[in-house]
């Protein structure tokens, strides 16, 4: 079993320093890895990133994150990434990392994602250059996410984004802003690989659970949605076997 802790939209700054720390104290007893679903900061400044590093660094479990739209606001992404990386936090953007969890290889592919909306009510690459650029941005991010997921050499795959890959987990948000909350292209990328779980944030008024058209479980772990320091997901052995033919074959070999 792999135990995944996750939270998004922690929006750290000095006024929030220490708020998550009491709950994080026992994290190594409860989870094998902590995934952060973006919007780590309020404005994406280097000093706010230092607050993130202080709060979520040195936890005793690997910490993997993607950035969110807030983390881009002040155009200090390289500085933010450096502060987080120096604190031992792995920052993903269109790439992946593999973590050994008791001999099981957990692969996490991550990307911020972007908007555009969902099937039947989505933006198209048409018209003004600004509109085309908007849709192309999402398309390029989704393509990198899909490639990262498919190329992962691991036993179980998890997709980590900030924007939502499905409309299910946006329930509670105004319908009018769905195109700014996520894109079906992210869902399509997730469905292009045998993904076990997809985690995202961004939609503070959304809801916890959904699935992609391909049947991948999606969870919105935005802090205001989960209303706890982090959520913990247990991926069972069955799930591990189902997500990798190698493991599945080995397991059935043992049983037979």
């Amino acid at each position, binding site marked *: 079993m792999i135990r995944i802790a996750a939270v998004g939209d922690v929006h750290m700054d000095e006024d*929030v320093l220490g708020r998550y720390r009491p709950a994080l104290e026992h994290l190594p007893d*409860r989870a094998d890895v902590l995934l952060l679903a973006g919007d780590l900061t309020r404005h994406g400044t280097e000093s706010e990133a230092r607050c993130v590093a202080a709060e979520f660094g040195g936890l005793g479990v690997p910490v993997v994150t993607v950035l969110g739209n807030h983390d881009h606001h002040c155009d200090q992404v390289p500085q933010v990434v450096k502060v987080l990386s120096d604190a031992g936090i792995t920052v993903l953007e269109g790439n992946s990392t593999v973590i050994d969890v008791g001999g099981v290889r957990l692969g996490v592919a991550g990307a911020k994602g972007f908007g555009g909306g969902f099937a039947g009510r989505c933006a198209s690459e048409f018209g003004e250059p600004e509109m085309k650029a908007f849709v192309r941005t999402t398309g390029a991010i989704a393509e990198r996410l899909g490639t990262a997921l498919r190329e992962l050499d691991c036993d179980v795959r998890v997709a980590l984004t900030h924007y939502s890959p499905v409309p299910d987990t946006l329930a509670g948000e105004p319908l009018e802003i769905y195109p700014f909350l996520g894109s079906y292209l992210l869902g399509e990328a997730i469905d292009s690989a045998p993904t076990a779980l997809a985690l995202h944030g961004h939609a*503070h008024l959304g809801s916890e659970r959904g699935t992609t058209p391909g049947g991948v479980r999606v969870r919105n772990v935005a802090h205001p949605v989960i*209303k706890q*320091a982090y959520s913990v997901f247990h991926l069972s052995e069955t799930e591990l076997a189902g997500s990798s033919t190698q493991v599945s074959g080995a397991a059935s070999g043992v049983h037979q």
Partner: protein
Amino acid sequence: MSDDNATVKPLDEYAEAAVQRLLTEHAQVAEQGITVVRRDHTLLLRGEVASPQRRDEILRLVTEHFPDVTIACDIGVTRAPEPSEVEELP
């Protein structure tokens, strides 16, 4: 008080939009998760933020920009306890 209110321009959609953008774009706030509800002569602010200081700053800012409007602030601070249960994904 009621005489004063009678002369105040009613809250319209433009005011609602202005508050929403103010809360998102103001450098000290940057909150996108606040719902603005117009109720007759009252502007209700709803949602959750990460600290009491952020709630106070939102209220201060909106009051400063709309001094003639009665503001009702029902913004909570998101709880951050350890999870009491896990979700098993079979």
